[in-house]
C-alpha cells in the first residue's frame, strides 16, 4: 500500500505533504489529551508492533499479498490522534530507512494509511461498541469490522489522489475497481489481525484498550487503573 516515488505529479505530492503536515500538527496537539505516563509507553509499543506486523505480508489470491495498515488497531488501543501519530512514525521510518514508500510520496502515504484508516475505523468501532452489548466478543467483532472497513477506504483515497495527479493511462473508474476490489480482500486480513490483537489485550488488560475504557464496569477500572477526568 506504500506509494513509491514517481506515481504522482509534483503538485499533488507537494499538496499532500502540506495537508499531512497540517494534520500532524493537529494530531500532536490533540494526542496530548490521550497520553499520560501510563499510556505513552503503550503508544510506543503500538508503533513498534505496527512496524513489525507490516513486514508480515499475507497472500491474498494468486500473486498478490497484503499487509496490516494498522490505523484501526492503533486507534482502538491508544486513541485516534495517538493512533495517527503511531502509524505516521512507522511510515516515516519505512520511507527513511527502507525506501518502503517514496520520500516524495510520504504525505500521500500518511494521508492514506494513517489519517484515512483512523478516520474510518475509529467512528465505526465507537458506534458499534456503544450500540452493542458490553462484552468482549462484541468488542472483538467491532474491531474486525473497523479494521476491515479501513483498508478499502484507504484504497479509495488512493484513487481520489490518482484522479487528481496520478501518473498512468488507465481511467479512474478502472483503477478504483481494481484498488477497492483487491483491498477489500486485504481488509479481511486487516480485520482478523486487528480483532486478534485487540481481543488479546482485552483478555489481559481491558483498561488498556482506549476504545472501550469508558464502557468498562466501574469496579474494574477502580481496581486496576487511576481514571483521569478527561476523555
Amino acid at each position, binding site marked *: *500500500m*506504500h506509494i*513509491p*516515488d*514517481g*506515481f504522482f505529479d509534483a503538485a499533488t505530492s507537494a499538496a499532500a505533504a502540506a495537508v499531512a503536515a497540517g494534520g500532524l500538527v493537529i494530531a*500532536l496537539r490533540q*494526542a*496530548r*489529551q490521550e*497520553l*499520560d*505516563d*501510563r*499510556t*505513552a*509507553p*503503550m*503508544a*510506543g*509499543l503500538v*508503533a*513498534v*508492533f505496527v*512496524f*513489525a*506486523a507490516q*513486514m508480515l*505480508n*499475507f*497472500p*491474498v489470491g494468486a500473486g*498478490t*499479498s*497484503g499487509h496490516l495498515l494498522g490505523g484501526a488497531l492503533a486507534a482502538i488501543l491508544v486513541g485516534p490522534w*495517538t493512533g495517527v*501519530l503511531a502509524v505516521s*512514525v*512507522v511510515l*516515516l521510518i519505512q520511507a*527513511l*530507512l*527502507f*525506501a*518502503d514508500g517514496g520520500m516524495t510520496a510520504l504525505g500521500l502515504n500518511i494521508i492514506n494509511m494513517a489519517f484515512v484508516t483512523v478516520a474510518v475505523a475509529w467512528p465505526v468501532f465507537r458506534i458499534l461498541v456503544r450500540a452493542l452489548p458490553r462484552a468482549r466478543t462484541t468488542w472483538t467483532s467491532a474491531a474486525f469490522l473497523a479494521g476491515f472497513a479501513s483498508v478499502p477506504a484507504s*484504497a479509495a483515497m488512493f484513487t481520489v489522489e*490518482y484522479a487528481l495527479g496520478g501518473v*498512468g493511462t*488507465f481511467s479512474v473508474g*478502472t483503477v478504483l475497481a*481494481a*484498488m477497492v476490489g*483487491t483491498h477489500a*480482500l*486485504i481488509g479481511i486480513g486487516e480485520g482478523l489481525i486487528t480483532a486478534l490483537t485487540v481481543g488479546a489485550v482485552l483478555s*489481559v*488488560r481491558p483498561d*488498556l484498550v482506549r476504545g472501550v475504557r469508558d464502557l468498562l464496569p466501574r469496579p474494574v477500572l477502580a481496581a486496576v487503573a487511576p481514571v*483521569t*477526568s478527561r476523555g
Partner: protein
Amino acid sequence: MNRTVRWYIGAGLALSVVMAGIVGWYASSAPDGLERVAADHGLGRDGDLAAASPLAGYEVAGMAEGPLSAGLAGLTGVVATGLLAFTVFRWLARRRGAEPPAAR
C-alpha cells in the same frame, strides 16, 4: 507504570522483535495490493529503489539475501521505530503534565 503494564509492554516488544527479526523473512514476497494494481494497470514509473538507502527493501546492502540480512534489517527498524515513538509519546505526555493538573 505498574508491574503488569511493564510485563505487558515487554511481552509486546518481544513479540515484535520475533515478528520483524525472524518471521518477516518467511512472509509472502508477492507484490502487495497496490504493487499488483500498479503492475496490472501501468501506474507510475520505475524508481531506483536500490540507491535510496543501505537498508532498502528490508535487506542489508552488501549482505547475501536471506534470513540473516532480512532479520537484521527488521531489527534495525524495530529499534528505530521504538526510539522515535517512545521519545515522541513520552514528550507529549510530559507536555500534558505541564498543563493544569487533571483531577485523578
